């Protein structure tokens, strides 16, 4: 039913887009994610510039399909859900990913502080997939963690912890991440590991 409603909304959009002026529809991304998609804490939209194209594509797909961003407690995620669906049906995931790739990515200023030494110990459990420098590893589909919005990393780790992400059967990589989240047992562990990730270059 939900899908049908979305389709109805899509048809309505197709009607209006016919009259829209020429421009770049993916500029919509910048509304929430900020200039050059470097993130906007003001509305809890993370930095997405500099993200790996394959990672962006997979997450857009997850939002579009409802494999991510559905639980009501994930307020920011459910704002992104219908946007992912719209990008997929009325534009193209490839087009959006390509656009993000043209933006000028900047390292965000840290907003969180924690026990970096403790965070380093905890990060040992992350290295295998995300790399010693947080550089990521495409062969296991693990995204880079360095130079991301730190508050966003913390939110997502908490979402994995609470079962707000990585619980949908279609999100297999998310499920892997959720399986290993027990190495970060509480809020302090999350803050500390993110504080350490902030030091990675």
């Amino acid at each position: 039913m939900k899908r049908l409603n979305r389709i109805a909304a899509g048809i309505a959009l197709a009607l209006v887009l016919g009259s829209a002026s020429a421009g770049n529809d993916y500029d919509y991304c910048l509304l929430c994610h900020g200039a050059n998609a470097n993130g906007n804490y003001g509305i809890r939209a993370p930095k997405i510039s500099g993200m790996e194209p394959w990672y962006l594509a997979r997450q857009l797909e997850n939002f579009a399909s409802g494999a991510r961003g559905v639980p009501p407690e994930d307020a920011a995620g459910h704002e992104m859900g219908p946007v992912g669906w719209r990008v997929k049906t009325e534009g193209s995931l490839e087009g959006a990913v390509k656009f993000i790739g043209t933006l000028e990515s900047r390292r965000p200023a840290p907003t969180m502080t924690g026990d970096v030494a403790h965070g380093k110990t905890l990060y040992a459990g992350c290295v295998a997939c995300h790399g010693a420098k947080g550089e990521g590893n495409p062969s296991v589909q693990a995204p880079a963690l360095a130079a991301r919005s730190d508050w966003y990393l913390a939110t997502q780790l908490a979402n994995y912890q609470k079962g707000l992400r990585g619980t949908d059967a279609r999100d297999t990589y998310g499920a892997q991440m959720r399986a290993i989240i027990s190495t970060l047992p509480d809020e302090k562990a999350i803050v500390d590991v993110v504080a350490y990730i902030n030091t990675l270059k």
Partner: protein
Amino acid sequence: MQSDTLSMQRRNNYNDGSTSMKRAVSRRDFLNLAGALGGSTAVFRAAVALGILPAVAHAERPELATLNKSRKVLILGAGISGLTAAYELSRKGYEVQVLEASFRAGGRNMTVRNGDRIDETGYQQVCNFDKDPDLYFNCGPARIPGHHKSLLNYCKELDVELAPFINDNRLAWVQDDSMFGGKPVRAREFMTDSRGFVAELMSKSLKPEQFAAPMTNDDVERLREYLKYLGSLDPSFKYVGSSNAGLAVHDYTNPDVLKKPLDGRELLKSKFMAIMSFGETDDQAAMMMEPVGGMDRVPAGFLRKIGHLVQLESQVQKIKVLSKGVEVTYRRNGAYVTAKADYVLNCIPMHLLAGIEHNFPKEFAAGLTSIPRGKLFKIGFQMKERFWEKEGIYGGISWTLQDIQQLWYPAHGINRQKGVMLGAYTFDPAAGEKFARLAPADRFKLAIAQGEKIHPGYGSYVETGVSVAWHQMNHMLGCAAQWDEELWKKWFKTLQTPVGNHYLMGDQVSYHPGWQEGAMASAHFAIADIDARERAAGSVAA
């Protein structure tokens, strides 16, 4: 950008003039010194601080002086504050350009009619109301109180015709699942019977010794008398019903028959008591007004005068405050464009401004992310029949404690076949989020199911609907900024005080967020300040 000029401005701006500045130098020496360091604006700020020039104390529509020099002003956002400032400044010789991110002007002042697009980030909608001048929906502001002077003055000046708006209707319904098993009662019954119940109890239990201030027996008697009128009590101070609650039958050829009072204890179970006096509050009490044909007649009025100054689909990406002027970079047709101006009046919602590249002082930037964004939500339904008029309801609001919270009946088009009524207007952010999570068709289903409890058969009248989740609307991502006492105290001055020649505006920079009057007051505040600076610099015609 952190020049001496600016730091001086930030220290001295808008203080109360009772500065404790040490008088080691004379006032004149100090002003000369300030001028040498920071130019005419610094002299102006310092003069204000010393009490020589009056500060911009209030935000009534200012009388601007006409410029005799060229001054370029960029206004970011064609909402009510931006249009107000553009209208005023352009008439006085300022060279004004308004950059608007959206495909339309008006900001949250938005009326939809047949064919209009509702630009939500995810769920796009098109309004399918019949083509008819009465079939429209005010998605944002919808009523104007009689004391909102600025807005009313502009309406007059811009030929925006106004008509009465009915906010409070005692024949409308009150519905709450926690009383009478969810069965609705007329607002007048709830109000009259609950007041009668409370007044009777109080009058029975009043004793002089209960009061902190000395009360004589005569005082207490007068108080009981007051309660008698307040609660429509009978001569023996009992509440036995009142025609204020509506008669049992309206048969004017026979004696009146009062309704049996509703059970007072049952009435007090409802939290409607908190909303009961809504129609008596400062901004909501009669007499209210609305523009004939839709609230967007207000921006349309401005656009008739200054529409040529507004450039749509121009989304700001970067703001650089310079030692002189401000530089703005925006995206248009997929490319970056940079423009420079002497002044920038910035009406971008602050939670979006936070994501734009800028060189604002740290404190100012911190303020931008500190005020929560509003999440108000509205639904408008086109009804194939004005069924509410058969229930004696002509305009006004029914209240429910369900998610939809309110049903509004249009005060325009009475007795016509169809009408657009409001099917939900949520104040609670959780309710707004709940609706926003759903696709439009599911939002309508939920709203219809709840409306059925007030009007059985409600859903059968719905022909088509529109929904507006303000925190998901493109280029808005929020309704009125959610200030509270603590936030006002901590951030308001910081955000209101100009950063160099950059001013933050909009209802978000007023003590009246969510009202067009607040937006206009913020514009008046900013342009009055610019005017004072230009006068001090001698750039105005004598």
